[in-house]
């Protein structure tokens, strides 16, 4: 057991990061055109071939990177599906979403038209576009037919680890913005980075984010307790984001600033993947 990322993971993460930095839109929602570029670069199929040596820990590294961007792509679910199922490369290049249980529903988060949805055994599920949850403006969720089998067992455990890593990426994004904001925003004649209360909020956000990252890594190594790790990981990532929003003051609440995307994404993921007490 090692908690460190492997070479493949570091390489993929670096390349995916470059693509997302250069192309990804800043609007929340699933960004098809960015996915196109990633798929063409071969990043969607890389986990499907065992010879490439991509481990779950490596997927986490990529998941964290992808969580940092407000737009979503099916990269993580595609990488996971490539690990788990016999899926042909064409399907992987189209992008894959997977079916999760949420309460008594089965849902596919981050789904958009054109993505293939796989059920818990890797078989495709037909999705009506009308199945989109109307409430989920920022992190689209498709409600699947009730008969769909949802992900379970080790696959669910791996998905939990990967999506806690996505949540850590969300926290990374909000903390980075909070740091920037603290260096430009003036209050009472000084930038707010001078206030120890703001500085300690940032420190506490960092502590929570690092702990969440540990939870993601632990989840990858300890599948039997993945539900507990997911609960802790999402909760810690959320705490980091809450603090980052508090640092922003009132502007943290406006749609335009866009912090809600990250918070809401973590809340949604938690409702699907976190184990309830």
């Amino acid at each position: 057991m090692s908690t460190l990322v492997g070479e493949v993971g570091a390489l993929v993460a670096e390349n995916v990061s470059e693509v997302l930095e250069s192309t990804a839109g800043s609007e929340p929602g699933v960004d098809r055109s960015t996915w196109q570029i990633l798929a063409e670069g071969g990043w969607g199929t890389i986990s499907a071939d065992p010879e490439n040596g991509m481990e779950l820990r490596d997927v986490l590294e990529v998941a964290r990177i992808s969580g940092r961007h407000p737009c979503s792509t099916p990269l993580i679910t595609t990488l996971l599906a490539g690990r788990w199922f016999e899926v042909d490369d064409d399907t992987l290049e189209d992008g894959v979403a997977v079916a999760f249980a949420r309460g008594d529903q089965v849902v596919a988060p981050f789904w958009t038209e054109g993505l293939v949805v796989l059920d818990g055994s890797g078989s495709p599920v037909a999705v009506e576009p009308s199945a989109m949850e109307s409430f989920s403006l920022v992190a689209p969720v498709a409600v699947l037919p009730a008969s769909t089998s949802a992900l379970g067992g080790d696959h669910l455990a791996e998905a939990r680890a990967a999506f806690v890593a996505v949540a850590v990426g969300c926290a990374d994004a909000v903390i980075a913005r909070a740091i920037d904001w603290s260096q430009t925003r003036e209050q009472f004649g000084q930038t707010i980075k001078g206030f120890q209360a703001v500085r300690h909020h940032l420190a506490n956000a960092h502590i929570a984010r690092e702990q969440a990252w540990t939870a993601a890594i632990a989840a990858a190594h300890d599948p039997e307790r993945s539900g507990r790790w997911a609960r802790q990981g999402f909760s810690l990532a959320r705490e980091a984001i809450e603090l980052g929003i508090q640092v922003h003051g009132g502007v943290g609440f406006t749609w335009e600033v866009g912090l809600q995307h990250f918070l809401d994404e973590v809340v949604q993921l938690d409702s699907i993947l976190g184990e309830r007490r």
Partner: protein
Amino acid sequence: MSITRFDEPAAAEFREDVSAWVRDALPDMWRTSRAVMTPEEVQSAQREWDTALYEGGYAGLAWPAEYGGRGFGPIEELIYYEESSRANAPDGFGRIGRVLAGPTIIAAGTDAQKAKYLPRILDGSEIWCQGFSEPGAGSDLASVSTTAKKVDGGYLVNGQKIWTSFAQYSKRCLMLVKSSSELPRHHNLSFLLLDMEQDGVDVRPIRQINGEEEFSEVFFTDVFVADDDLVGEEHEGWRVAMTVLSNERGTTEAATRLVEATAQIDLLGRCCAAGSDDAARLDDRRELLRWHILRSTEEKAAELDWFVAGSILKVQWSELIQDATRLGLDSGCAEHRGYWRHHYLASKAMSIYSGTNEIQRNIITDRVLRVAR
């Protein structure tokens, strides 16, 4: 003579009066079909409620009798808020006028301003909003940058206000503007009463973190305010604003938040987190908040060290509601998932508005514990 202790017989009598009146005065539709009303019907019930308050004598509870009020104190106000929230009475559009604009004009306005504005605030015919917050000012209210330029007979106002409730319904706005770029901080602001129904006033709703549009941004471009609508001395608006804000905080706001917290914590205890220690602890904190409000109200009525309470109450109710909604998310009952997600996201703003919780803690150390910096 207003009530100073809840154990006076007068307090119980007043509570009965209010409770009976609220039951009678509630708009029919509100009582019977609140859940299915259209937005237009809700608005019309809110306007009806403004009128009912006036006719029932509840519009100016704490206003002096000479201005049409009842001359009551904080205990009567709290009793009114408790009973009206218990009955789920609507929130009228006239709140800012009754709670902020009216008391400010009474305290600092001219006789002409009193004669012109107070009656229409009381009877609900003119809705007011407040223009204090600005995107660039944040917690540092004294750094507002909306300007008022002196012109013949008045001022031209230019700039932007934010987080303005009721802006789209308002006839008037009480606002703080920068009237001098040379005078020192706290002596460079003026307090104006602005007519919102003019060209150059542009109200744009703000879409919040939970997708709702509760507040607006308001843009002002060369909007005229007559000299007669200056409150207090020119450039001394900061002093006037401090009066308004000390009204804004405190027991009244806490009492309405207690109602909100109670609904949430009841739901947790009844369903989503039933039987958990977490829910029991929140219920203990809710009950403590209730007693803290009662205690603060009596201390205020008795003119004990009242200054203290506002900041403590603000921190208490905001953190209580944030913790309750977080537990709602975490306890994860499927039926109420949407409810908790909505209220959780909305509650994130509570530690920021009405003075951030960091500012409240600064106030406590600075002014209550009086530890110099």
